[in-house]
């Protein structure tokens, strides 16, 4: 059996490989195989899986990519992820991708979908507009039809029909995957010193480029290994990281937060893995089931409208309670509309509940960690020195 550091080393290799060699290899093994890229906030990966398509989660270029052409597409006051994503495309690193899905997170991604159409007229590109109306008969119906249109699009890529049974089967596979993701998160919540956040992060990142079954295996291996490994517990406080659901911070930033005295006990990285809060039923009309799961059982995030004012921020506050967190760190990408516009409301909700928080901004290629360490460190100091418990 592998130990955690071997598993994480493998994940790190995948993470650092901006040429997506692992996914390419998977595809090259069989000429019939197809790959569809998406930005991992929320898309119904089950549909791709049902068509035998590997869904590739694309998270920009990170801090190791030198962006040269991306700046020719974006002004300086737009976040970084679209420019490094374009850079990936322009430098032909995504030339093996047969289709692209752009989830409805913000105007930048929305417009990126159009740019992709202009840039690659031959690739299947879909702006996947999920409903902001959460009533089954309205938003739900609309969504079922969107799913149907997407399914037809995917069928166009693979040249055959995707059956309901295939979808049901895929739903089950993803239910399993989600259970494991949640198990890893729960384990970290319970014993954060045994599952450092940067490891958990890399483990989830691996799920972006691997077939889902392999990812599930990787997670159960990790869990098995981590439980038995002994790592020292540090004098850290427990925080939840919020606002990083799209452009991701560099790995060093995640490490820096932990180094400066904060255990991250929950986060919103790669939401697609945990967007749905419950299992999707495997019987009945699978598209309706997916639609209902989205409408009824998805988490709260800045990219989603909250119909009832009273519910705003509840999800986060409940998470703080459930995970016994001592504070929240809002870490959002610079120029990120959804996260930054949401922040004052979330912060307000926290203040009303006496939950301490701090906030800062980053970019996927932030190099100077000193200011981050300092703020996170001060936050940790304050909790450690002044909280009643310690």
């Amino acid at each position: 059996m592998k130990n955690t550091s071997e598993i994480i080393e493998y994940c790190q290799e995948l993470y650092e490989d901006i040429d997506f060699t692992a996914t390419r290899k998977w595809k090259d093994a069989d000429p019939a195989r197809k790959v569809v890229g998406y930005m991992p906030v929320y898309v119904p990966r089950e549909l791709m899986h049902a068509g035998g398509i590997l869904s590739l989660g694309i998270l920009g270029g990170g801090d190791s990519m030198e962006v040269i052409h991306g700046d020719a597409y974006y002004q300086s006051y737009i976040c970084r992820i679209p420019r490094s994503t374009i850079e990936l495309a322009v430098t032909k690193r995504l030339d093996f991708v047969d289709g692209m899905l752009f989830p409805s997170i913000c105007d930048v991604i929305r417009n990126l979908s159009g740019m992709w159409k202009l840039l690659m007229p031959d690739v299947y590109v879909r702006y996947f507009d999920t409903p902001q109306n959460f009533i089954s008969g309205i938003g739900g119906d609309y969504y079922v039809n969107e799913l149907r249109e997407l399914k037809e699009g995917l069928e166009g890529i693979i040249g055959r029909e995707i059956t309901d049974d295939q979808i049901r089967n895929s739903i089950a596979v993803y239910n399993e995957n989600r259970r494991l993701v949640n198990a890893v998160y729960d384990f970290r919540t319970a014993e954060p010193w045994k599952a450092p956040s940067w490891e958990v992060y890399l483990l989830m990142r691996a799920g972006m480029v691997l077939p889902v079954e392999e990812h599930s295996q990787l997670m159960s291996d990790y869990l098995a290994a981590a439980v038995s490994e002994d790592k020292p517990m540090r004098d850290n406080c427990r925080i939840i990281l919020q606002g990083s659901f799209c452009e991701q911070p560099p790995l060093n930033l995640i490490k820096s937060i932990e180094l400066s005295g904060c255990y991250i006990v929950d986060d919103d990285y790669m939401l697609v893995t945990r967007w749905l809060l419950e299992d999707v039923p495997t019987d009945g009309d699978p598209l309706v089931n997916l639609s209902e799961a989205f409408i009824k059982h998805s988490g709260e995030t800045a990219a989603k409208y909250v119909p009832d004012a009273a519910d705003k921020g509840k999800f986060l506050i409940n998470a703080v309670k459930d995970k016994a967190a001592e504070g929240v760190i809002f870490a959002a990408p610079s120029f990120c509309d959804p996260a930054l516009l949401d922040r004052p409301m979330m912060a307000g909700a926290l203040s009303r509940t006496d939950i301490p928080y701090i906030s800062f901004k980053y970019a996927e290629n932030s190099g100077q960690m000193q200011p981050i360490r300092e703020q996170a460190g001060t936050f940790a100091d304050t909790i450690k020195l002044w909280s009643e418990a310690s």
Partner: protein
Amino acid sequence: MTITAGIDVGTGAVKTVVFDVQDGGAGEIKWLSRQTEKIRQRDPHRLAREAFDNALEEAGVTQEDVAYIATTGEAESLDFTTGHFYSMTTHARGGIYLEPRAGAILDVGALHGRAIIIDERGKVLNYRMTSQCASGSGQFLENIARYLGITQEEIGGLSKVADAPEKVSSICAVLSETDVINMVSRQVSTPNILKGIHLSMAGRLVKLLRAIKMKEGTVLMTGGLALDTGLLAALNEEMIGQKVSVEALSHKDSIYAGAIGAAIWGAFRHEKLAKIGALPLAS
């Protein structure tokens, strides 16, 4: 008797103090020794060791006598310490030690400015830092001083005799530099240039204070620029200008605020850990 040491590794200098602290800071606090060492392109960690040794010697104690060696600043990875506190935490505590009336701390160093609201126990309540752009930093002032041919110690005195200061407008230090050069060519006097820079910096610092809702009371300047009397004067002028009824003070030992805070928090933490029986070994 609890001997503790505070080591503040900055971008410009390493500051070290040794204290004797009673009851984790609640009782008597005795200052035993102090050391500053300008870094000047040397290895800060080596300097920190040297400064620490010198401070021990001056205080007449040995490393074994020290209950808690606390660092602050750029020193998380120093290898001979007990624990690390972050700058704002330490400046807050050091500030309240130096000036018990202070309701806020303005820490202005080589590359940064921070405004920190504190309570009477030195707890950080709220803070703001200057953003990435650096035209309001000590470094910039240093560069300009070099260009104008004056020493850092002279800046304050000159600034205070200005009669018609001209503010620099740009956010960017590079562009501000051009502003200054243009001023020189327009024969604006050195005091007026310096005062102009001081006022621009002060304007930004007052904004920080307002951002964290510091509306009245006393604020203590700490960090290297606390020694710049011109900046202090400009700060007080700007407060009046921006209708903030806050008085800014400096202290002759302001530059040690971080190190002092570290030493006192070290003692506090030492007590706390002793109580729960989790004393770490001072290596």
